[in-house]
């Protein structure tokens, strides 16, 4: 928070609240003349804080996370640093208070407006020396092509390049089967348990950011975020959708174990998984009720918009202004095949662009990067950081695909090696086989994260056991040869 003490802040708040009240009053009265308070609003920058505090003055400097601000109270000037996280809204002076150059927001070219939604003013992001942004697209199969190592590499590159924003385009492949034969999954298909692969990655967009001196702001742009891919955007407070964007595919939580074992243990498993997922939503600041509606077919959720903002009710609609999001999916409420095919099922929630925006999950719908930059307030000031993200992500996918092919091929080659013949031939054969197995270990070390650490270690251990047996046989063989001599 600011470097001014509490008493100063209290005084300042009272003074500025009075200014704002004045502006509001004038507007309500429809007064055409610009009152003094309104002039203040126009001439000075105003910060409205989440706790209701308001300060006016001049923004001296800002970056992605902080604002250096100069104001005055009772004629005494002060300077303070504020965290952007504490600020609800920044109202920028239309005219610089000291009559300096107009700010970039006022120099917007006319043709830019044609791209923007009608009557919408572009917010302005920090622009000193340009706002650096970095983009990465997460495409391919979640947990496979989309994995922690290439994402982390991209993020490192973004931070190294001084990015203020990292734009993550979430567009995971939701088809099933091998690539060449893949087909779209059915609408009711779900993969809640990809949650745990998502947890291998979500730190990169949340807690890991704190380790950077100048953490970039991460913005997710959802094209397709299905299955485990649904969890990643939820860890970030800022999310946009494309027009055909979808987020969901996790609606099988309470069906994960079928009838296996005792109900009480299944309930335990559902409970712990749900709370892991809710933790992700809490981190990003999203409603856990929406998450439950996405994950639990039995969960009933209704929405109303009494004052324009969504209000959620865990029951069926009770009036004309209420809209059912999900029913209990039981008996007559179970989604019909027709409803599912039409994408109109309501046993579980899948967020579309419109719904996500209505529910305040998405901050807007954009269909190209320019629109997104506009929404972020960086359409003019934005400078793209040179990015190798495409190469990094594709390199990983290709490498992984090749690695899996190599593992199969190497396994076949190792199995085909005959350990017969004389001592020299046997020794050579064992050496060849050992070399192949060690190559396989190397591949697993590089790409094994896609199997999960536990499984990777197990696979590596199996290979090591084969190698140990070869070593043992060779030692024994050698002893016998020496004995013969």
């Amino acid at each position, binding site marked *: 928070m600011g470097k001014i003490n509490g008493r100063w802040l209290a005084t300042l708040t009272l003074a500025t609240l009075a200014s704002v009240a004045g502006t509001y009053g004038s507007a309500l009265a429809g007064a055409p003349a610009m009152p003094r308070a309104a002039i203040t609003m126009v001439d000075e920058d105003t910060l409205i804080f989440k706790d209701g505090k308001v300060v006016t003055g001049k923004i001296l400097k800002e970056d992605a996370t902080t604002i250096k601000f100069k104001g005055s109270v009772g004629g005494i000037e002060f300077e303070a640093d504020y965290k952007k996280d504490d600020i609800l809204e920044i109202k920028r002076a239309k005219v610089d208070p000291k009559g300096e150059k107009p700010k970039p927001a006022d120099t917007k070219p006319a043709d830019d407006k044609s791209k923007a939604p009608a009557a919408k003013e572009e917010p302005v992001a920090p622009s000193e020396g340009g706002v650096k942004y970095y983009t990465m697209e997460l495409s391919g199969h979640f947990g496979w092509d989309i994995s922690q190592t290439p994402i982390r590499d991209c993020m490192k590159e973004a931070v190294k390049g001084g990015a203020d924003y990292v734009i993550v385009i979430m567009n995971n492949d939701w088809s099933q089967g091998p690539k060449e034969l893949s087909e779209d999954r059915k609408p009711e298909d779900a993969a809640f348990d990809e949650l745990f692969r998502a947890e291998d990655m979500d730190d990169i967009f949340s807690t890991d950011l704190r380790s950077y001196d100048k953490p970039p702001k991460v913005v997710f742009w959802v094209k397709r975020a299905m299955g485990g891919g649904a969890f990643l955007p939820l860890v970030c407070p800022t999310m946009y959708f494309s027009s055909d964007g979808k987020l969901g595919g996790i609606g099988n939580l309470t069906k994960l174990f079928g009838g*296996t074992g005792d109900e009480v243990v299944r309930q*335990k498993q559902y409970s*712990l998984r749900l709370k*892991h997922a809710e933790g992700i939503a809490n981190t990003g600041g999203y409603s856990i009720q929406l998450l439950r509606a996405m994950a639990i077919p039995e969960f009933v959720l209704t929405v109303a918009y009494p004052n324009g903002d969504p209000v959620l009710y865990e029951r069926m609609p009770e009036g004309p202004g209420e809209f059912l999001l999900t029913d209990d999916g039981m008996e007559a409420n179970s989604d019909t095949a027709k409803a599912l095919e039409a994408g109109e099922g309501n046993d579980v929630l899948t967020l579309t662009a419109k719904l996500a925006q209505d529910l305040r999950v998405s901050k807007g719908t954009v269909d190209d990067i320019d629109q997104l930059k506009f929404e972020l307030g960086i359409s003019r000031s934005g400078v793209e950081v040179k990015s190798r993200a495409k190469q990094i992500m594709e390199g990983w996918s290709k490498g992984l695909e090749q690695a899996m092919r190599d593992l199969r091929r190497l396994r076949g080659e190792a199995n085909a090696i005959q350990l017969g013949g004389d001592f020299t031939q046997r020794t050579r054969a064992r050496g060849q086989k050992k070399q192949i197995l060690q190559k396989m270990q190397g591949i697993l070390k590089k790409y094994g994260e896609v199997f999960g650490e536990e499984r990777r270690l197990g696979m590596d*251990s199996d290979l090591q056991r084969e190698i140990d047996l070869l070593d043992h046989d060779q030692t024994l063989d050698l002893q016998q040869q020496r004995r013969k001599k």
Partner: protein
Amino acid sequence: MKCNGLLGGRAWLLVVSAAALIASLTLVSSPAGAPRATAAVLTPVSAPATIADKDKVYLKDGRVLEGKITKELDGYVWLLQDSNGITHEEFLKPGDIEKVVRAGDGGGAVKPADDTKTDTKAADKPKPPAGGAPRAAILTMEEMVGIQMAAKPLKDAIPLLEKDGVNVVVLKVKSGGGMLLEIQRISDVIHNEYKQRFRTVAWIESAISAAAMSSHCLEEIYFMPNGNYGACTGWSGSLVAVKGRELERVLLDMEKISARGNHPKEIMRAMQISGRDEVLTELAIEPPSGKLSADIDPATGKVTWYQDHSGKYILNPVANIDILTFNAPDAEKFMFSRGTAATKEELTKLMGYQEIEWVGKPKNGYAWPVSDAEEMQIKWRAEITEAQARLNEYFQKYGVAVQTAQSMQTKSDRAVWVAKARGHLDFLRQLAKRFPNIGLMVGINDDWFKEQEDMLRQLLR
């Protein structure tokens, strides 16, 4: 070997039960059927007999804290407590305080905390325990309980913490559960060793099943924003629940551990068994079930718990799911946690400190300095993970050497392979000694080693 597990998370592994642990616990009377109970646990955190010369702070949750009030400001109270010579400062919010009785008030002068005035020392910082900012260390407790998250490395770390002059220990928990047998061991180390020496708090990222039960003896629990805590149902094999007398024992053990942490026993029961009426028959146990609800007094904020649904807020079941696991907002709302902190700086404030001297050195990938004690935890986890993963390799090496020895025709040839086998057996012995639970899991104990030694001796005849 009987196997019972409390493992949560993704791994469907069989885990080993602690028959020994269960047998060692004293049985008390089976739980009474009284469904309504208040969360007010009147056990003081520290209760020296000489109360007249100490300030007493009565909390709305029923606790009474004693010590010296070092600062008061706008109803906030900083209370310096002394426990067996170890001092720590507790920061108390006005909303948590029922009343304050000051030393010298003769026990009669009761003054609401909100009426406390800013005294002349109001501008002072909270008094640190040793004349400066308190020294704190974060110890991570991660992965499987009984393997990576275990009592041994925690106990071994105490001398290192003392060497570093640590006053405050933050146990940061991230575990999906594990072995039942380790719960009591960890609880004992924390309760009998850590809490006696340090102000010990839990910082929960994920404490599922045995991890929650192991942390439950701590009064002071904070969450991370993504934190979760609960889902403590015992099971083994293909999701088969622990039942009957064995389950009753675990339920009783957890009532005792709940008392250690001043947590209402109703909470843990709702984490262990579901609230469906039929669950009592299915699990062959006595009532009550794990239904849970609560009321929050709008004036005092005091939470009253019910092992039924008579309270305003239903906590079990929630969203059609019938076992309690807390998320961070609910844990805070119902005062199970004392707050939610994403960073060590936020945690510092929640603990009531302006400043903490975090002990240790910066380490890549860690958002806090890593102390020697924490290095020990990291090393333990790495080594035991490796040992667990390579266990089959070690057994194979030993087995192959034995088989080869058995196949040798001459005594001298056998001796060579017996020597190799002994080398591998020694390695296994060292491993079982260093990681006893791994030995327990695979059934290698003193008797097994003796049998192997005998067999190897036979081979040399």
